[in-house]
């Protein structure tokens, strides 16, 4: 025996029970409340189509609301609670909505609650509280969800007799086979119908499939059929709420199949009659499943209502289990074959039921036009069979109408999918037109949609099946319309006076059954699927406990506070060290490309908008790149390492974009060029050493006279080969040292020791930002925002006069050189500190003419300065403006100046 609890009370289940079977075993009929009217509901099915018996399973971070009691297998300690009721399941205040049902007709909310938006929000507050079903957990999910790929020649979905046979045949033909079954045991209808009494055939078939190398996944649902025969499977490794054995609660499989065989069977349909929703109304095959598979007899006096032969099997099963079958209401006009020994009534359809909250008491039917009633505690209903064509339709397949079965069956598909078994050949049925009260004849049980709601939607003009669904909410519940769609289509067809196939059909989209969000996220739930990129020198920095700053997926030191320094204090101290002495920083994340070959110059003059080929060997220069539409999208430096070998650097944030751009130009536009452009962003770690003492520090490190500004040499530091680029972003004499990442540690240590010896400091991104703003250097993502031309950024003089670079055409468009463009300016505060991101305005209530792209303070002298974009800014130097940030309540009076605040002559670069 297994112990579980429901609404706080402990019960016992048998091994192999679903929660639904266990509840029925314990005589529990009332399991849940419906969505809209809070009507008492019981267990209607034995499968994933269950609309009523929704419970919350598990606790803490494993709480799973809205779990179908028919789709969770009981384990020791399972905790289940009913939902959408208050104060308790038996007495639910929400049931008053049922009394108001005549007012709360389909789409009633579109016709009322007028007034201001605030007024609607007042009503909405209560509507939202009443809506929803279970409560979401508030704690973090402790479990993992795995995602795994698989490939096979044949994927078989459904392990009933058809699926098992198909999988066996394929596996024994030497194919890679995956067989999936949503149940926890194989056999499907064989178990329900008792055809494989001791399970021998299923057992043997399974063993043979495995022996032939086939993979069998039970408790696994094929939930989505995507492009090119990709099927996603959701596997319950642990049951809802259960603590998993290996930490993994569920696994999502992405299966690429050569061929997919759907043996998905069909779902039994309910019938529409009055009060067809109360506990004690069950589907016939479900009743049979409970009797045969679980040994639970859900009723003592049973009425059976059917329009087909299959339900007779249920009657026999019930009889055999000791229940009394008081009536078989068969809608078909003539008796079905031989004497069944059952009280069969032909031309008989159920009209209504009576009962209490927890149970059914009687059934009324129309028999040959006359009303008759039976006392009964269970009605087993079979309204026909709806083939499970969901995956076929998801695959882009079309459907045919099978008139004998009154069902849609799979037809053609553009993917490699076939449907076999009951899903392809449903049993014939007799078409029954509902005759009972439409207001209490439910077709979407969970959302409380009745036949009269369909009628109302029709009358109001919501006549396409999609309008109908959306207006009435039919099919929008957690059972996704598995039981309701056909009933609605039938009613719609009846209204239109056409056959069902002409009335339309809604498209099935994934998922077939609801899929846990954590499973979709997989390992990505922890980091949004965006791993942090770790610096080669991460350990070195981490030991200094810096303030980190995200930059793309990287984290870089923003500042290295000493003692109780704040970020601003630390950054200013670091910046001052650079201005007055020497500082060093990690610049490893810059994009870097090594470009070699006889055509390297030509290639780079396509990528870069500046000249490159005129560079002498050993020299470098600033460069920038345009998009094809003519706007600047990145900048950096280019270095001629050798006659036919260059190093190109560009921004960190644009690194991936630049790599793609370079590859596109190289591979697609210029396949003929003799050039190799290799991304070496991560190959080289980079260390910048900057400041008046940088040259001395470098001389000590490399043991020779450092190269002059914008020159490059190779050297050795700490016995490791390095490339030294004499480049400056800070405005001081500076060097970038590039070293193979795996050997960066000793080089950093040597530099750090030397910088310390000079009395210098490490500096982070914040100080670097101060330095470059003061110097008037651009940053991609700041001043270079993708909307600026070279002219807007005062870079036009550097453009390659010969053209030929990417973006030259785009740049010639008229609006790129019209007056009124935003242009790069410097700003200095007259009063107040300039807020970064602030708007530049001429006065209050005037639309902004620009904004502050970056703000800082003069490092040695103090004073708030900034870079910005301003309409026609080049011509407005000297003008006074307001930099205002209403969202932060900050404001400064500023003067427009040239965007260079420091060493405009570039004397600091000279030795």
């Amino acid at each position, binding site marked *: 025996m297994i112990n579980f609890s429901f609404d706080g009370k402990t019960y016992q289940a048998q091994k192999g029970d679903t929660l639904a079977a266990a509840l029925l075993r314990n005589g529990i009929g009332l399991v849940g409340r419906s969505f809209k009217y809070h009507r008492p509901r019981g267990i209607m099915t034995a499968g994933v189509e269950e609309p009523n018996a929704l419970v919350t399973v598990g606790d803490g971070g494993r709480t799973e609301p809205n779990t179908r009691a028919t789709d969770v297998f009981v384990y020791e300690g399972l905790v289940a609670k009913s939902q959408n009721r208050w104060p308790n399941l038996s007495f639910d205040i929400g049931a008053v909505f049922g009394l108001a049902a005549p007012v709360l007709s389909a789409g009633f909310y579109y016709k009322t609650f007028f007034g201001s938006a605030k007024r*609607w929000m007042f009503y909405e507050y209560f509507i939202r509280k009443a809506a929803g079903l279970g409560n979401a957990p*508030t704690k973090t999910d402790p479990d993992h969800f795995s995602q795994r790929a698989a490939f096979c020649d044949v994927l078989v979905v459904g392990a009933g007799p058809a699926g098992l046979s198909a999988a066996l045949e394929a596996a024994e033909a030497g194919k890679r086979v995956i067989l999936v079954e949503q149940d926890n045991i194989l056999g499907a209808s064989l178990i329900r119908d008792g055809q494989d009494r001791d399970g021998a055939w299923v057992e043997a078939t399974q063993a043979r499939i495995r022996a032939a190398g086939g993979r069998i996944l039970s408790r696994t649902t094929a939930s989505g059929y*995507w492009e090119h025969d990709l099927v996603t499977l959701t596997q319950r490794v642990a049951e809802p709420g259960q603590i998993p054995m290996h930490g993994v609660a569920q696994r999502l499989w992405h299966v690429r199949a050569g061929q997919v065989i759907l043996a998905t069977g069909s779902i039994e349909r309910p019938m529409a009659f009055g009060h067809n929703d109360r506990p004690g109304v069950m589907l016939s095959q479900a009743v049979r499943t409970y009797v045969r598979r679980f040994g639970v007899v859900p009723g003592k006096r049973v009425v059976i209502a059917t329009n087909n032969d299959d339900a007779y099997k249920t009657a026999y099963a019930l009889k055999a289990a000791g229940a009394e079958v008081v009536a078989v209401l068969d809608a078909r006009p003539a008796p079905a074959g031989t004497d069944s020994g059952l009280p069969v009534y032909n031309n008989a359809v159920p009209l209504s039921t009576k009962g209490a909250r927890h149970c059914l008491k009687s059934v009324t039917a129309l028999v040959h036009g006359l009303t008759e009633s039976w006392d009964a505690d269970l009605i087993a209903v079979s309204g026909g069979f709806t083939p499970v064509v969901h995956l076929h339709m998801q695959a882009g397949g079309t459907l045919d109408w099978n008139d004998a079965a009154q069902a849609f069956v799979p037809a053609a598909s553009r993917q490699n999918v076939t449907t076999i078994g009951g899903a392809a050949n449903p049993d014939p049925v007799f078409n029954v037109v509902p005759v009972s009260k439409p207001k209490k004849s439910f077709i979407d049980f969970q959302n409380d949609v009745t036949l009269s709601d369909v009628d109302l939607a029709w009358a109001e003009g919501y006549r396409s099946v999609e309008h109908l669904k959306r207006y009435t909410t039919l099919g929008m519940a957690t059972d996704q319309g598995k039981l309701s769609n056909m009933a609605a289509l039938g009613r719609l067809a009846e209204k239109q006076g056409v056959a069902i196939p002409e009335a339309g059909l809604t498209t099935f989209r994934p998922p077939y059954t609801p899929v846990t969000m954590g499973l979709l996220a997989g390992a990505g739930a922890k980091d949004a699927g965006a791993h942090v990129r770790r610096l080669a020198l991460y350990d070195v920095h981490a030991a200094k406990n810096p303030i980190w700053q995200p930059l793309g997926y990287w984290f870089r030191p923003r500042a290295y506070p000493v003692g109780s320094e704040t970020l601003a204090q630390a950054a200013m101290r670091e910046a001052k060290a650079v201005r007055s002495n020497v500082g060093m920083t990690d610049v490893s994340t810059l994009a870097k490309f090594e470009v070699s070959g006889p055509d390297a110059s030509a290639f780079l003059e396509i990528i870069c908008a500046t000249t490159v080929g005129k560079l002498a060997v050993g020299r470098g220069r600033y460069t920038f790149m345009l998009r094809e539409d003519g706007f600047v999208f990145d900048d950096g430096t280019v270095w001629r390492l050798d006659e036919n070998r260059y190093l190109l650097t560009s921004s960190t944030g644009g690194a991936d974009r630049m790599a793609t751009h370079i590859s596109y130009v190289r591979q697609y536009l210029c396949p003929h060029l003799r050039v190799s452009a290799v991304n070496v962003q991560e190959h080289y770690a980079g260390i910048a050493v900057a400041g008046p003492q940088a040259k001395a520090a470098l001389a000590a490190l490399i043991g020779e006279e450092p190269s002059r500004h914008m020159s490059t040499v190779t050297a050795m530091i700490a016995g490791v080969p390095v490339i030294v680029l004499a480049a400056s972003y800070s405005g001081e004499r500076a060097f970038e040292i590039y070293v193979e990442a795996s050997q960066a540690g000793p080089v950093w240590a040597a530099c750090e020791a030397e910088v310390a010896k000079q009395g210098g400091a490490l500096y982070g991104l914040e100080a670097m930002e101060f330095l470059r703003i003061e110097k008037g250097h651009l940053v991609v993502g700041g001043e270079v925002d993708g909307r600026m031309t070279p002219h807007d950024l005062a870079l036009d003089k550097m453009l390659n006069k010969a053209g030929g670079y990417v973006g030259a055409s785009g740049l010639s468009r008229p609006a790129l050189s019209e007056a009124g463009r935003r242009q790069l300016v410097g700003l200095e505060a007259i009063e107040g500190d300039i*807020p970064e991101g602030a708007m530049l305005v001429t006065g209050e209530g005037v639309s902004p003419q620009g904004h502050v792209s970056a703000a800082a303070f003069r490092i040695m002298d103090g004073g708030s300065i900034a870079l910005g974009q301003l309409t026609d800014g080049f011509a407005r130097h000297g003008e006074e403006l307001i930099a205002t940030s209403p969202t932060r309540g900050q404001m400064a009076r500023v003067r427009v100046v040239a965007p260079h605040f420091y060493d405009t002559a570039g004397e600091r670069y000279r030795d």
Partner: protein
Amino acid sequence: MSQYSAFGLLRGALNGQKHWQPAWRDPEPKSHYDIIIIGGGGHGLATAYYLAKVHGLKNIAVLEKGWIGGGNTGRNTTIVRSNYRLKPLHDLFEFGLKMWEHLSDELNYNVMFSPRGAMFLGHSDADMTKLAERGDAMRCDGIDVDLMTRDEVQKLEPLLDMSRSARFPIEGGLIQRRGGTARHDAVAWGYARGADSLGVDIIQKCEVTGFVRDGDAVVGVETTRGRINAGRVGICVAGHSGYVAGLAGLKLPVESQTLQAMVTEGVKPMINSVIMSQSLHCYISQSDKGGIVFGGDPDNWPSYAQRGNPMVMERAVAQGLALVPALSRLRMVRTWSGVTDMSFDGAPIIGETPVKNLFLNGGWCYGGFKATPASGWTYAHTLATGKPHALNAPFALDRFERGATIDETGSGPMPNSR
């Protein structure tokens, strides 16, 4: 048109709600209309409504190939906001937002506009500066929006992961309190009912298959229900603009891509606002029925398939769960996809085309729903007068060849790099 009211519903309780009229007629197409709008989505229906209501035009038809509201109007995440950085965008969307606030009364149809707040989260100081910049740009143009501290964000959405060690820690937010969500279907139905009552013919199952030309001018359309003549024709079929404009020989700066969204099973209220992010591309809200509505990036490749994609969906969910871990055990119950017109600067295209009498309203990327009233209002002006409205003038089709693009993200002409 029977007036909708609570009283009407009570009256209906006595008669089985049998007194309601069809919300719109099902007319046969006439041989000539002064203005034909191609596309019975929210934008097209709104345009027709305002043509009749504001410009007093009587002879208008909306031609819909399927059923009204069946395109992107019924396939979005229902978010309404105006918090854009660039002026032409926030001015247009703000004009619309103000209309949303009274739309239910205007239409006598509850579109359930719920200004619960549209909040962008910032995950770093740099994010917060960018959000402030956007907010400042809006505030200077008279649109209210507020920066939020971490504590304010946490108070509004207690289920957000506020830990400092989170992959994308939350530093604050930018909230437009007047933003929120609306009931998407109701917008189409409300405008349809309103337009119909003003005499507009809404013709469903009527697909335009070609244009009737007289010289360089369009004088009508060929449809699956025959030829219909028109004084002016307005295309309003975002997602399929390229295709329909192609029938007139035009090639647009538009690529059609799939955008998918999803919803979980309903749960009791847990998300109070619309949550978006400056660094992550996912947006999360909770519907009135309790489902958590989730959206992410478009597919980033061209498609008319109107089919989702597990890769993109899984990425969006991962991002959402990183923000709100409590969503982990909810179940995604339904997905849907729309075909979006991805324009080449991320902004819509509204106005004249090189073909006389033919106008275009499209290129809405994945942000068209919130613009429905503004789009309809300004497009109606353009169709009625033949001239741009002040608010849609910046969105002219020729801006691409001129170089006057409105590139909110600064990412250039390739929609997939946006």
